[in-house]
């Protein structure tokens, strides 16, 4: 009950602050745009080829862009050391985690919605398989990146050179999720295979790591 209200309040506050500064979304968007452009120079694919590599390109672009956003979320709490105000309050730590993860989820989803048309245009994409499956993969995959990303971003603010630490910790753990997202996306785009296994795998990954994050977040938040 209190967890829910604190989560809601924190999410509301984060969205309002992001709306006012637009730090995360702007840097994220521009970064993803750069990746798209550079990739299209680097690979210069035909329509047929692009269909089979697009899954990889799209998700690598989103992964890098998400890291930019993830670093932002806690940076905001470290300015003026506001995080201390949360930590001295009786509010449950997991409420903070869930709010941050949901906020990041929203940011990355917005990014994806804005970037997808660009990908479609630049790479001449057209899906052979059903598009609604892409949406499912995107939602599950984004949560997979964001839930661990939020956790490891919180973990790396306790280390030296924190902005470098986040990808170093996040990428190895995310390998199965990235593999699943990329392969599922490719399967749907080319229509050659069923993405069912990957979707189930992403769901399992999401469940398992959400549980692990919730279990360990308090220890990490208070590690000082």
């Amino acid at each position, binding site marked *: 009950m209190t967890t829910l209200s604190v989560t809601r309040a924190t999410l509301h506050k984060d969205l309002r602050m992001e709306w006012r500064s637009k730090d995360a979304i702007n840097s994220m968007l521009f970064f993803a745009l750069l990746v798209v452009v550079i990739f299209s120079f680097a690979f210069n694919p035909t329509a047929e080829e692009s269909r089979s590599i697009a899954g990889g390109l799209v998700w690598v672009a989103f992964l890098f862009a998400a890291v930019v956003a993830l670093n932002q979320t806690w940076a905001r709490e470290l300015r003026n050391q506001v995080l201390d105000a949360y930590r001295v309050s009786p509010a449950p730590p997991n409420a903070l985690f869930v709010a941050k993860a949901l906020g990041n989820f929203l940011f990355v989803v917005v990014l994806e919605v804005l970037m997808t048309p660009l990908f479609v245009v630049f790479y001449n994409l057209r899906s052979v398989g059903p598009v609604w499956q892409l949406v499912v993969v995107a939602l599950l995959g984004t949560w997979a990146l964001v839930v*661990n990303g939020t956790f490891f971003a919180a973990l790396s603010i306790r280390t030296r050179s924190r902005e470098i630490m986040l990808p170093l910790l996040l990428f190895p753990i995310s*390998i*199965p999720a990235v593999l699943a997202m990329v392969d599922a996306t490719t399967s749907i785009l080319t229509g050659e295979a069923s993405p069912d296994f*990957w979707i189930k795998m992403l769901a399992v990954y999401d469940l398992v*790591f959400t549980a*692990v994050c919730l279990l360990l977040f308090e220890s*990490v938040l208070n*590690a000082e």
Partner: protein
Amino acid sequence: MKQLFIAFIVLTLGLLAYSTYQALYVAPTEQTMGDVQRIFYYHVPSAWTAGVCFLVNFLASVVYLWKRNTASDALAAASAEVGMTFCTIVLITGPIWARPVWGIWWTWDARLTTTLVLWLIYVSYLMLRRFSAGGQTQVLAAALAIFGFVDVPIVYMSIRWFRTQHPSPVMGGGENSGLDPVMLQAFFWNLLSFTCVGIVLMVLRYRLQRLEENVEAKHAAVALQGGSR
């Protein structure tokens, strides 16, 4: 205690010599692969030992988060490093074996890839230990260890599936194709000796960690008396 450990080291060295002898001279030459197959006697026990180390690392990390005792953190640090060492051996000897047998250095098959990912995860673990300051290291490292351990089965599962979908290049032989009893015997000797080497290294690394903690404690005592300013 110290004498016991020295006796254990001597025993381990003896075992290692004997098991290497078994692997090189006693075990018969495999028919299709020839002498290359003997790499297996080092490769697989290394993988096993790495696995044991990472299991120890996971358990020690869980105990640390629960009890917050420095001993289990030291064990976690020790097992991660030793596990990394054996994992490195696995990753190097694997391609050396693959090249003459399969004609390629590397294939993205489930076992290889999982080992690589495992290695990456524990590299990041050791980096985290290095990059975080003072009293925070232990909690952060323990948390990451749990993530890593939970991740490994998922990695294995996903890559298995990835491979069945995209068939990999020629995968002849493999070690499960009905081992000769003499081969099996050589294999178990090596398994035993490598496990002992792993234990020796872990104990040494653990003691090193404890010694370092001791030095820190001495410094702390000096600082407490007010000499450090």
